[in-house]
């Protein structure tokens, strides 16, 4: 430890308190903003990730469309309508498919009545494997099963918010009956869901029962299929196989991109990852920009310090100070100033992000777009590294100037 050097640094900073504090604030602000920005970015990213985690990561959503190409003598303009057999085809013939389900839209007021209450909820007729696709969590009772579908049972599984609104005083609603669109269904389970709140206001119904009771026909509005693959190429191949199987069954051209629509959230996840990669890059850019402003401030201050100390530097040179020892003195001071103020910036930014995360958890604040903001050790490490480099850069040019000061001129100053 070079006691004299540090004594001089403290002395130099102490002699100009206001200047030191203002400079420190500019660096502090830069690094503080960088940490806050990145923390906020992670909050956005984590909330989006949470939404993806809610549904199975690699899910195909398939809708029927209208053919646009003639195929095997058939004219374009035909509607493609899925039915239960389509789901079986996906389930049995497509390699790599894990879970499948259909969904059926129910039109009208969708009134659900219980005792004197009549409220409108989303009705969602599905197959049993829908449980895994939506990552539905059963709280009481059970989900729909094959037996329910096989014998067209009039049963339903309600969301915990449905239960709360419809029968807040009933501890265990399993076994109770609700009247849906005029027909009594028995509640066999209550579920919750980690996704957005609306999911918990759904009522799941056996799809076959709904087909029979409300449609009179075997129909599916939307097919869902999941894969456990995390590979983009495999996923794209699976998509091809799904299209060709459905094209064979419904007699449309595989190249007809309007006959059916397939939406895959894994592709979306990729886009999402790219998007957040870019967002992060942007945040770093902005953050580093504000650090740069701080660094230029420090560099300016160091220039002024060098000017102030010209005479002193001249004296030191006369006494045998080498250019190197002069540079080292100025650069150390600069690194010290940026280092300390930046370190405080990192700590305060980190503190605020952690506090925010803690407060959100503690007071159960649930925001759709913001979740668990965090700063990783890697970010802190890079921020500190940037600071050190910034300090050196900010100090170097003024120091270089100081080193070239002529001792004679300096002492006559």
């Amino acid at each position, binding site marked *: 430890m070079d*006691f*004299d050097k540090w004594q001089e640094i403290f002395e130099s900073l102490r002699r100009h308190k206001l200047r030191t504090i203002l400079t420190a604030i500019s660096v502090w602000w830069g690094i503080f903003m960088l940490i806050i920005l990145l923390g906020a970015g992670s909050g956005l990213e984590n909330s989006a990730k949470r939404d993806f985690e809610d549904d199975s990561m690699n899910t195909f959503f398939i809708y029927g469309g209208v053919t646009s190409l003639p195929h095997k003598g058939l004219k374009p303009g035909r509607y493609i309508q899925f039915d239960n057999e389509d789901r079986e085809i996906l389930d049995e013939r497509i390699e790599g498919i894990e879970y499948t389900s259909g969904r059926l839209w129910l039109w009208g007021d969708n009134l659900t009545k219980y005792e004197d209450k009549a409220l409108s909820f989303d009705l969602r007729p599905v197959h049993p494997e829908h449980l895994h696709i939506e990552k539905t969590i059963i709280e009481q009772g059970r989900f729909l099963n094959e037996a329910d579908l096989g014998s067209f049972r009039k049963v339903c599984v309600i969301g915990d918010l449905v239960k709360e609104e419809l029968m807040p005083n009933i501890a265990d609603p399993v076994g109770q009956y609700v009247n849906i669109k005029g027909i009594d269904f028995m509640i066999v389970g209550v579920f919750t869901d980690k996704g957005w709140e609306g999911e918990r206001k759904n009522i799941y119904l056996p799809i076959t029962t709904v087909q029979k009771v409300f449609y009179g026909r075997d129909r599916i509005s939307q097919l869902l299929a999941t894969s456990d693959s995390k590979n983009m190429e495999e996923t794209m191949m699976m998509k091809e196989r799904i299209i060709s199987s459905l094209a064979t069954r419904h007699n449309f051209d595989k190249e007809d991109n309007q006959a059916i629509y397939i939406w895959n959230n894994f592709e979306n996840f990729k886009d999402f990852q790219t998007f957040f990669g870019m967002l992060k890059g942007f945040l770093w850019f902005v953050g580093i920009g504000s650090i740069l402003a701080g660094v230029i401030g420090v560099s300016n201050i160091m220039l002024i310090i060098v000017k102030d100390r010209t*005479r002193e530097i001249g004296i030191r040179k006369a006494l045998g100070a080498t250019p190197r020892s002069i540079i080292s003195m100025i650069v150390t001071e600069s690194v010290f100033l940026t280092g300390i103020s930046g370190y405080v910036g990192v700590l305060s930014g980190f503190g605020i992000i952690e506090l925010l995360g803690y407060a959100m958890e503690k007071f159960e604040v649930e925001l759709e777009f913001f979740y668990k903001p965090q700063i990783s050790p890697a970010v802190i490490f890079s921020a500190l590294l940037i600071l050190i480099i910034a300090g050196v850069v900010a100090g170097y040019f003024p120091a270089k100037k100081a080193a070239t000061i002529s001792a004679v001129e300096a002492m006559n100053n």
Partner: protein
Amino acid sequence: MIEINNIKKSYKTGSTELQVLKGVNMHVEPGELVSIMGSSGSGKSTLLNVLGLLDKYDSGSYLLNNVKMEGLSEKEAAFYRNRFLGFVFQSFNLLPFKTALENVALPLYYQKVDRKERLRKAEQYLERVGLLNWKDHYPNEMSGGQKQRVAIARSLITEPKVVLADEPTGALDSVTSEEIMALFKEVHASGMTMVVVTHENEIAAQTQRVIRLSDGLVKNQVPVL
């Protein structure tokens, strides 16, 4: 100790070139106490800067302690300034935020002498100039004479070959000037080679030899009787 042959030095100011030293020849024997005199503009300050390795010269040769001082890098110049030379200035040039003791010890810092040893040696030299009681005082708490004594102690601490003094009494009253000259003579008596730049005849008269500089040339060298 010092041998200077045909030293020339000019400064460029805009388009005009100003020849300050026009071929100076001089030498200083080991253990001599020499004064350099001259009116302002005679080139004496420039000569002192050249002697002190604080400024470069254009041509000629300079031997200091039998070492050729030619084409030195900044680092080498710093080394020789530190090892061979001690400086005493008109305006003392003490660092205001350091105590007398720390000021005296500073040249040893650039020799990488350990702090304890530095301060121990600085105490010895402060005692020699009679200011050991003032070691913890800052320059602004001292009189001009005291400051110059501290500066002299600082110039001696590295045990240099030559002490260069630039108008050392220029900022002092006559009584204090006498005290400082007495100290100089005392240091000289211990065997130190000394070069004093001055424009005061009373000061020059107390040295062994006077080198008179005029218009960038040595006019005459007069031994003081």
